[in-house]
């Protein structure tokens, strides 16, 4: 088979060369764009070209050779069809491996390193793209037609398999699950192509395996979604034991701990509310993407993970009641607290501000769209409900939004923007350095509205005093790799907790507007105490898992890697802890997992331990969950 394999490599190389070069060029271009304004198009994403390479190779595996008679020639030799198929797919796999390696190298060069935990998203698309190209190549002999055909085939497969999941309101439980889920239609596509190839003709019969596979896939999707749905429903009202605490966030004296656990039907995720002196409360709701505490620490807004639509819930910490909410269509949005229920603030377009009230499920939507006279690139809300807009024209602050009456949207009607001048809002303007004009990609304002963090370009972080425009120049991150720039992910702020993520950085503002701690995703952190200036922590080799947080009196900082630094000391405090702490609880206590070897057993309690960071010793165990 050596001669045949070499022939396939040479033949397919003609098709693989272009997209592989495009990966290199895209990587080079996107690297050059770093620090400049956000590109208008995502064509510079090497991952995109990898997908194209996979599609083209899928098509090139059979179609062109079939069109030129090569396939017919080989069929008249004593060569089994499956062997011929595997030689073709083997050659394509070698080219794909080269393309994948090129992509990884390009990304590593561009980003200064690879984070495979997040970059495994790369593994998502290309097998499916290859499978669809392969199916298309068994249907037509024309490469261009086959490339065009692979798109509807992709749509059909994705719809067939994910349609039932979407229809039943189930979200894939995690990125790795998505990889596994996509592997199914990819495998189906490749198998269907194999069967069609074995038939060896271009009659409609060759599409029959694909049609049967698609129907089977739909059935599989239905069964899978039904099973997952049943399993989740069965566990909906239970607190599932064996969950591990993951990320925690703190607001004042209250901490939210996200608990994770893997189940056969997906990832279990719960939110635990922890306050000093009282037992932790597990919010009785499955799924907990982006839990957010209200500024007064009395309410928790959870959203996502409840389905594909923006359905959320509001948990009242004092009464322990849970209220289902419809969050409308504002997924990546800041929360405006203050009214009866929270509202979500986002930019609809560059000149339209959307304020959508969370309403009870089944109630009509309430949405206010405000027409902006100037372009805005990013929006942020402080704890006092003031809205900050940053754009080429500067920084503006709108006060009084929490008092606005948000109108009900009649079903089927269009919402027209309301002019800013017609609303009872106070508008203030602040000067910001001209260098930021046009390159703004993200804005976070401190709870008191005194400090503003601005992500400029893909990776440069700037800190300003809002009132004066004074810039606190951020120190360089020693030992930190070049920040990652992912043009394909348009919403940089959309992640675990939108308040504390800013591009590749995770940030936490200190209490009383005292300062800010900034930690880079790939390691390295620094914090500003407005009285003392900047402090830089050595880059940590620990896995970046949690979020940074401040002690409520501002005397110490907890980094996401689990290190605790007193604000006036240049070395981290050693902790006598079984596991890295997750969050501050007040001024002197830290929340940590009390058991390192096994997961938490929520109903049996004894899962949280409080540490005194000044001495680094364990003081007393915490009580059990409700």
């Amino acid at each position, binding site marked *: *088979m050596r001669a*045949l394999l070499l*022939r396939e490599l*040479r033949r397919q190389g003609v098709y693989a060369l272009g997209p592989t070069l495009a990966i290199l060029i895209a990587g080079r271009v996107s690297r050059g764009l770093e620090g400049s304004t956000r590109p208008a198009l995502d064509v510079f994403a090497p991952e995109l070209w990898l997908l194209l390479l996979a599609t083209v190779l899928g098509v090139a595996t059979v179609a062109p050779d079939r069109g030129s*008679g090569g396939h017919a020639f080989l*069929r008249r030799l*004593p060569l089994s069809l499956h062997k011929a198929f595997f030689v073709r797919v083997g050659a394509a796999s070698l080219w794909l491996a080269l393309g994948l390696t090129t992509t990884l190298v390009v990304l590593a060069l561009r980003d200064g390193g690879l984070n495979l935990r997040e970059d495994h998203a790369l593994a998502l698309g290309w097998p499916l793209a290859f499978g669809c190209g392969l199916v298309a190549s068994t249907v037509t002999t024309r490469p261009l037609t086959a490339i065009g055909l692979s798109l509807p085939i992709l749509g059909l497969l994705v719809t067939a398999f994910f349609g039932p999941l979407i229809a039943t309101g189930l979200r894939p439980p995690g990125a790795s699950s998505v990889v596994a889920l996509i592997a199914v239609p990819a495998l189906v596509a490749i198998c269907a192509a194999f069967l069609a190839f074995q038939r060896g003709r271009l009659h409609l019969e060759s599409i029959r395996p694909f049609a049967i596979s698609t129907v089977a896939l739909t059935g599989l999707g239905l069964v899978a979604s039904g099973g997952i749905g049943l399993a989740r429903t069965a566990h909906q009202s239970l607190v599932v034991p064996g969950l591990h605490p993951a990320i925690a966030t703190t607001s004042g004296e209250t901490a939210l701990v996200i608990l994770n656990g893997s189940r056969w039907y997906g990832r279990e995720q719960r939110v635990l509310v922890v306050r000093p002196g009282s037992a932790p409360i597990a919010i009785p709701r499955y799924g907990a993407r982006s839990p957010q505490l209200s500024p007064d620490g009395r309410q928790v807004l959870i959203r996502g993970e409840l389905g594909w639509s923006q359905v959320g819930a509001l948990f009242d910490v004092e009464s322990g009641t849970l209220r289902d909410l419809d969050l409308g269509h504002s997924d990546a949005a800041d929360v405006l607290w203050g009214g009866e229920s929270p509202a979500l603030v986002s930019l609809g377009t560059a000149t339209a501000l959307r304020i959508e009230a969370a309403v009870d499920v089944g109630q009509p939507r309430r949405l206010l769209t405000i027409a902006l006279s100037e372009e805005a690139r990013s929006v942020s809300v402080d704890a006092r409900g003031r809205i900050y807009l940053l754009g080429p024209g500067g920084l503006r602050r709108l006060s009084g939004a929490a008092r606005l009456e948000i109108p009900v949207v009649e079903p089927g009607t269009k919402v027209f923007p309301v002019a800013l001048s017609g609303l009872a809002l106070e508008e203030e303007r602040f000067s910001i350095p001209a260098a930021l004009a046009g390159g703004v990609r993200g804005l976070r304002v401190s709870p008191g509205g005194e400090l503003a963090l601005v992500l400029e370009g893909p990776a440069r972080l700037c800190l300003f005093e809002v009132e004066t425009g004074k810039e606190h120049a951020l120190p360089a991150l020693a030992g930190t790799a070049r920040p990652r720039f992912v043009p394909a992910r348009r919403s940089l702020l959309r992640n675990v907790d939108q308040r504390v993520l800013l591009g590749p950085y995770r940030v936490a503002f200190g209490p009383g507007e005292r300062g800010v701690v900034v930690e880079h995703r790939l390691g390295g952190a620094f914090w500003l105490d407005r009285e003392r200036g900047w402090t830089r922590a050595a880059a940590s080799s620990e896995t970046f898992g949690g979020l940074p947080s401040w002690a409520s009196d501002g005397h110490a900082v907890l980094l996401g890697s689990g290190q605790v630094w007193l604000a006036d000391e240049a070395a981290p405090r050693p902790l006598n802890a079984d596991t890295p702490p997750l969050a501050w609880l007040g001024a002197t206590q830290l929340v940590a997992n009390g058991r390192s070897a096994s997961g938490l057993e929520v109903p049996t309690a004894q899962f949280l331990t409080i540490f005194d960071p000044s001495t680094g010793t364990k003081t007393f165990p915490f009580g059990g969950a409700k």
Partner: protein
Amino acid sequence: MITLKRATAQEACVDEPSEQPPNAIQAEGLGRRFGRNWVIRDLNLEVPPGSITALLGRNGIGKSTTIQVLLGLLPASEGTVRILGQDPVKLGPKVFQDVGYVSEKRELLEDQSVSGLTRIVAEIYGQRFDTDRFEELRKRFELAPKARCKTLSKGQRARLLLALAIAARPKILVLDEPTSGLDVVVRDDFLGGIAEFAAEEGQAVLLSTHMIEDVARICDRAVILRTGRPALTGETDQLRASVQRYLVRLTGVLPTGCQVPLPHGAVILERDPRALTILSSGAPEHLEAALDQALPLAGIERQPASLKEAFTCLSAAVPGDEA
């Protein structure tokens, strides 16, 4: 008189003595349809070892489909096929260990050179591939080893395919319209190669063609596919002898458009106002009786028909012909 053998299913079912080698190719009651349209039906065919059998028929009659069904490239809708005693569908690609096939379209690996293509084919056949024989044929057929397949002419492609097929030392060679589009010199070369191959012991050739000259030159047997009627099989000499040419002279003028009553198995080859040339595979007295009743006959002259004329007569679409 008709001496052709019309193969029937009953005949085909008769067991042959066990010591006789099986036919190289044998088909019984073979049929293939696409949708509701039967392209071939009830075909009985045999290609004995050591023979060169022509598969004849008009354009679109299903010669290529027949070959593909015989080789297992297309599944039969009904009937059975045996290649050297085995079912080609079950054999799959292994059938091509013993069968060399040159298709009508003469497909090659266009991206390869002659030598590159030979390497691939030799690797697939392994020890069986006779490189020396191929080289000998390549030189004889004037094929440059470095020539790219996509630059080869029709004739060169046919010769290359024949050389590759023969070098693989098959027991059966199946050729689908191998000489169409070839000039006289190339055709002679090509037919010479086939004849040499067939001269070797026990090797059979099935040749689909519409060139009767080729059949007359090298084939010893023929199968004629006919629309709506069972195929005819027999030796080429018998085939030729089964048809007679009749020159019919008239005493008067035959009016234009006048219908001439002909018995089954007869067709008019030429028509003049005072004479007709008729081909017939039936008995002469039947033809004479039929003409005598309808036309003013001056005389009938009987002549031997050529193979081409015999093919014309036998393959003519006459409904209900029982010749």
